[in-house]
């Protein structure tokens, strides 16, 4: 995962609700972060465990990651929400940089990559189970589509997502991430990212969980 930062990787694992361990190797040190159900539940590096281990790994500038799908945590040492931990780690990094006189921000700001890589778009287009799809940005601008009437498809999903977010808010739920619809003749899937929304209609044979995992 060249170019991916550890906070990004953590965010991806949590938003994808993965349950696995991520091995982080930096020079001669190896750490592990354990995820379950969209949360970090345990972390170890050397003699450290829990949040201390996480903050240690989040300080590392370079490293490589690998996934260990068969590993499971022996203990639960991290109780805090992952977003709170990442926020605190970022603040600590800023403070450290200010104390050392360096700018906390990289000298060259790289532009974000497109939300969905081209090959995934091609994959969606080629997938016989995907009947139609639309992808739009947070302002509702249509970016990609495969549909006879993409505007109508996008508008339908956009309104439904607004209603469901409001329904969730009234129940005290958080941000909407995914919606899976199942019917006898069709299935549908919406994935809401911070900046993009991807929605698709599929045949009833499509595995929505697999599609969501691929796209998120």
């Amino acid at each position, binding site marked *: 995962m060249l170019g991916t930062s550890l906070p990004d990787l953590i965010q991806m694992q949590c938003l994808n609700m993965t349950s696995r361990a991520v091995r982080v190797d930096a020079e001669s040190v190896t750490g592990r972060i354990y995820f379950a159900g969209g949360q970090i539940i345990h972390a170890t590096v050397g003699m450290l465990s829990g949040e201390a281990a996480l903050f240690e790994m989040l300080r590392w500038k370079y490293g490589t990651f690998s996934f260990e799908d068969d590993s499971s945590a022996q203990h639960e040492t991290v109780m805090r929400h992952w977003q709170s931990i990442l926020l605190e780690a970022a603040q600590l990094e800023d403070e450290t940089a200010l104390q050392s006189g360096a700018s906390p921000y990289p000298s060259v700001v790289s532009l974000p990559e497109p939300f969905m890589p081209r090959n995934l778009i091609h994959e969606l287009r080629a997938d016989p189970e995907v009947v139609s799809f639309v992808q739009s940005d947070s302002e509702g601008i249509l970016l990609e589509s495969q549909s006879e009437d993409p505007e109508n498809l996008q508008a339908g999903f956009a309104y439904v997502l607004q209603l469901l977010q409001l*329904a969730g808010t009234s129940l005290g*739920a958080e941000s909407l991430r995914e919606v899976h619809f199942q019917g006898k003749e069709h299935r*549908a899937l919406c994935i809401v990212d911070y900046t993009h929304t991807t929605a698709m209609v599929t045949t009833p044979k499509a595995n929505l969980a697999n599609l969501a995992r691929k796209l998120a």
Partner: protein
Amino acid sequence: MESILRDLQDVPGVIGSFVLSSSGTLIEKAMPTVIGSEVYPDLGRRLVTALGTMDASIAVFDDMLVKFDEHWLYCRRLQNGLLNVVSSVAVNYPALWMATNIASTKIDPLIPAALAAQVAVPVPIAAAPVPAAPKRFWRGQAVD
């Protein structure tokens, strides 16, 4: 019906559930008390409208699973309404699906009667007071 909804909480991760009529009226609930009753009229209307919008503009679906950061809302369409289950993300989805299958068959036939019972018995309206006859005045003095 409430006991059927309470049974759904045997599935680990289920927080509560509620049943709506086809028009979004709350029929029954077994939800945490922190969610006040004032929430359900808007909630019901929005969920029913969301499914109705999908029917009209995309396709007809029997159920929807709405995933939030830490909670899921599973809505299953019944013949007479909508069964909704709120859970944590840790819920065992196949177990939830099976539990709602069983609950649906029990709840669906009970909805029409429960909805009919909700129709308020008309309260007799007290007759409005007869307006007093306008007073008549003669040179600034009231006269009968």
